[in-house]
């Protein structure tokens, strides 16, 4: 038995390689609420376009409530009212064919879940049923998707758990009997046991101490490299992004505002929000005062005209109040949505040179 995907393993994947594994195109997803009889929509994902290649770890960071978890839910096809997709598409180019997530029947969606696409949710324990032993979670989610049955299935699960440094006996435990680190590894084991091509993880290590976190991340990366899968990883921990991800997207107020290779983005953040985010990081041994962003976070139920960052932006000019800046490529693999940055590519280009090794 091999966990390697044919697509990742063979050269036959060559013509596939140009097509990203995930393409998100002009996606808008809103929560439609009725509050005291008044209709209201929360524009949690508002026109997001991006793509993730094979064998790539794509990180997503950004302000709290900027729409990261919503974006992830819409990509995973986990859309329940009041959340509704307004426009746009989410396409996966799996090794056995392309799938437009919003054209799938619930049954078809069920068939790709866990097998091709797995999702580790924020506040992740939700995937583990509190009143059932861990074993049952594996039989519920994984059994339908792997060829092995009976003892062979148990063997596959057991070996997979051991790879994550978990004893097989955790299968007999209830979720509350495990430590946070163990539960988190169980959640990762569940998400990876069927060898999915695409793994989505929403803050999967937030509750862990730094030693366990480092172990869990290393294991996640090890498994990702082995499977050749792609990962979409959300966390607020920027040091985790720096150490784990290949590329990074930054969200603010329902939009992607900047994207680039992780290293470039840290070395030379372009969007004013990204610049602020990176400069606010404290470090052991650094005694300079750090400040959070001034002003109120944007209200997604009543989005501002123009650039949504303008009331808090130190660089804002007139046009920022009127026109929303489009996401523009300013260098290979580098996109940013900011009038000021894109108006002076000269100022940007040399800076980018510096960054390239």
């Amino acid at each position, binding site marked *: 038995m091999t966990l390697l995907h044919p697509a990742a393993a063979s050269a036959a994947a060559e013509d596939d390689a140009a097509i990203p594994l995930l393409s998100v195109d002009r996606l808008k997803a809103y929560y439609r609420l009725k509050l005291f009889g008044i209709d209201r929509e929360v524009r949690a994902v508002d026109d997001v376009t991006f793509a993730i290649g094979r064998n790539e770890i794509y990180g997503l960071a950004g302000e709290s409530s900027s729409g990261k978890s919503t974006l992830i839910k819409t990509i995973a096809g986990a859309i329940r009212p009041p959340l509704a997709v307004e426009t746009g598409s989410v396409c996966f180019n799996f090794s056995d064919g392309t799938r437009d997530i919003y054209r799938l029947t619930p049954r078809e969606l069920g068939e790709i879940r866990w097998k091709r696409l797995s999702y580790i949710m924020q506040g992740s324990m939700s995937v583990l049923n509190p009143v059932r032993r861990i074993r049952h979670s594996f039989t519920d989610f994984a059994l339908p998707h792997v060829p092995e049955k009976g003892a062979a299935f148990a063997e596959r699960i057991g070996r997979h758990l051991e790879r994550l440094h978990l004893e097989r006996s955790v299968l007999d435990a209830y979720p509350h009997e495990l430590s946070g680190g163990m539960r988190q*590894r169980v959640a990762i084991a569940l998400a990876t046991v069927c060898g999915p091509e695409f793994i989505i993880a929403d803050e999967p290590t937030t509750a862990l101490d730094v030693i366990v976190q480092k172990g869990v991340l290393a294991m996640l990366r090890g498994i990702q490299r082995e499977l050749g899968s792609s990962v979409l990883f959300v966390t607020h921990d920027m*040091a985790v992004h720096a150490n784990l991800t290949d590329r990074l997207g930054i969200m603010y107020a329902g939009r992607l505002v900047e994207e680039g290779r992780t290293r470039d983005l840290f070395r030379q953040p372009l969007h004013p929000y990204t610049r602020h985010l990176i400069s606010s990081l404290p470090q052991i041994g650094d005694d300079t005062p750090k400040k959070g962003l001034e002003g109120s976070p944007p209200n997604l139920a009543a989005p501002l005209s123009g650039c949504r960052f303008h009331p808090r932006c130190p660089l804002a000019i007139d046009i920022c109040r009127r026109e929303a800046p489009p996401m523009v490529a300013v260098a290979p693999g580098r996109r940013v949505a900011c009038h000021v940055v894109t108006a002076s590519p000269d100022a940007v280009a040399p800076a980018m040179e510096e960054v390239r090794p």
Partner: protein
Amino acid sequence: MKPNLLDVDNVSKTFAGRGLFSRRMKRAVRNVSFSLDADRPEVFTIIGESGSGKSTLASMILNTARPTGGSIRFEGRDLAHIRSRRDRVAFMSRVQAIFQNPFDAFNPLKPVDRYLYTAAEVFSGCRTKEARETRVDDALHKVGLSLAEVSGRFPHEMSGGQLQRIAIARALVSSPSLIVADEPVSMIDASLRMTVINLFRMLRDDLGVSIIYITHDLATAYYISDRLIIMQTGEVVEAGDARQVLAAPRHPYSIRLREAVLSVDGAWRGTGLDAEAIQPSLR
């Protein structure tokens, strides 16, 4: 002499094992002692392993769990003697909690603003609706939210970070002298994290509130803490001045902890996630 704000005196907590998986007794907290001075408000930080007893210790300080050994005194009074409803309300208005996982801390069937109104009524004696609203709105503004955004919304309609900020606002509605914050910033973005951490500093410096800050984030711990303890399997393995301990840890576990911290600069030197080099704790 004025009593200490808080005395944690040789405190232990043992859970009886249940189920097939854990038949043994679980000593979650073992002989922990420390005191907070009433005249010197401080940020007292607890870091340590996942499962090392930090949250258990927090719940004993909040008097929601009883120690099985030792005692805890708040302003000189043993928490075991706080029994009547009146005493409990008085205690809770002085000692507030911010919990680890905001998704668990809120009842999914209750709009989140109800918690804030209840706190305003019970703990700060706001009689009128207007007084309550002002109080609640004030507290929400301190964490970058407003009543308008929060009114009538249920926990599942909020993002993780929004919920955590509401939990912090709730703690600020009464005027506590001690806040026990169990991983209050792990779910919020780096910028807002600094807003909250600076808010803790303001509470300490301007309002004289002491804060017990439980965290995995050693960088913010370094930034804000006065003193710090490091816990492993229920025990304090190292204690002292926060900056000194973090700059030069002595206990082997503290050293491992310090070395496991991922940093942005470290990533470019390739010191990050070296899959082979990692032996995760098996607990």
